């Protein structure tokens, strides 16, 4: 069902946990649909220096969270915003079609964390102008 890469990230998820005094925290998802993802970011000079996550979700949700954290770590905010769910799924060697929506959660969590960072620091991030972290990604 899942690719080897997905199973690898599911079995040994990278960057699990939380960051005390994180610069940005994003929580997305909806317990009603079964999944919640929480993303913690440490940001210095516009660069994501550390990232951690926690996920209540299926195998795909865990694997995509793990992969997403790897993809944004060490990247600038602009670069991190380009990490789409499609990109995450591709990096994992694909997901079963019924599980594609799970990867959206990771993208949303990163955006939510960045939005939180922007709010705390009074910056405007153009790409996140219309972003609503409370929207349920399953209902897109």
């Amino acid at each position, binding site marked *: 069902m899942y690719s080897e890469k997905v199973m690898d990230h599911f079995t040994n998820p990278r960057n699990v946990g939380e960051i005390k005094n994180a610069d940005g925290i994003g929580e997305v998802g909806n317990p*009603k649909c*079964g999944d919640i993802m929480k993303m913690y970011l440490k940001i210095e000079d516009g660069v994501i220096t550390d990232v951690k996550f926690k996920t*209540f*979700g299926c195998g795909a949700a865990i694997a995509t969270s793990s992969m997403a954290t790897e993809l944004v770590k060490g990247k600038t905010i602009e670069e991190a915003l380009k990490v789409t769910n499609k990109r995450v799924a591709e990096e994992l060697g694909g997901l079963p079609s*019924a599980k594609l929506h799970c990867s959206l959660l990771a993208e949303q969590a990163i955006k939510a964390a960045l939005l939180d960072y922007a709010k705390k620091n009074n910056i405007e991030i153009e790409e996140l102008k219309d972003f609503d972290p409370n929207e349920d990604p399953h209902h897109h």
Partner: protein
Amino acid sequence: MATKVYMDYAATTPVKKEVLDSMIPYYTEKYGNPSSVYSLGRESRKTIDESREKIANILGANPKEIYFTSGGSEADNWAIKAVAMANKDKGNHIITSKIEHHAVLHTCEYLEKHGFEVTYLDVDEYGMVDLEQLKKSITDKTILISIMFANNEIGTIQPIKEIGQIAREKGVYFHTDAVQAVGNVKIDVNELNIDMMSMSAHKIYGPKGIGALYIKKGVKIDPHIHGGAQERKRRAGTENVAGIVGFAKAMELAYENLEEHISKLTKLRDKLINDVKNKIDYVRLNGHPEKRLPGNASFCIEFIEGEALLLNLDMAGIAASSGSACTSGSLDPSHVLMAIGLPHEIAHGSLRLTLGDFTTEKDVDYVVEKLVEIVDRLRQMSPLYEKVKGV
């Protein structure tokens, strides 16, 4: 990883050696078509008759009331659709419950699209139907009540005799999906007031692809498959002779040692339930505490998600299920767990462990050990658990 401990007997069972041995000759030397007049054919016919008789005897039925099908789903579809079609001049109302197998539910939904009305009875927190609600739901137009004998997810056993009694008093047919009950409960169709009953061999150490529908003499029902004269002209198609033989053998084995089977499974199951409850917090048992299938242990393990749990168990060589196997592909939480009133996020963390004749105490210990580890790890990464624990 290769399966080390199989704990999904409710999904399917391995075929017992005696069962397979009984089947083989009907593939090789005794291959005659039962409808043929020569000796090779007559032998097959005789074997089918004997198998039918064995099964009928076990259930207190007449052999003429047992009709072989390709399994439980076909039996459910046949019973419901064909009683509906044959009795539509009498009425168009069917009563069932919210926790039926999809083979019943989706068939009812199909009939709703074709002019029938269906009442889906609620169940209480243990998965029990309410007999008063059932009585009140019966109208002049009610032609059929279909309530499952025992639930495949949570194991709850319904008050079948009482339901049958109510149906009989009101002159309404009563069908029960006994796919999970057969082989785990003593069943006498007459004592229990059953008019129709679905069965499937692969849940009782028989082969997949064979089952039966018991149809009480006199029940007005359309044929299911038109064609040859097989199954008293009600279910055409060259008979799956080997499958029928295997089904009968499996029934025989199941009912020869029923008491022993029940007491062994109950003991192992109770140990499993107790160990899980003692070693893992925020766990609840689904289904009725006593009126449940001997091999069924269904849990909700809070703050973790079912699929992630199953995958981890699989990696530890444990075959288990979350909800019913047929819906594992689906993202929706189980309709059964929703019906017993669990909120979505809790229903998502369901785990069904079902024990069978090859389960050992060591298996139970291994599963509990691994489950504790896995639940701990998954909860460490669960943002929900974090909140509860106030970490």
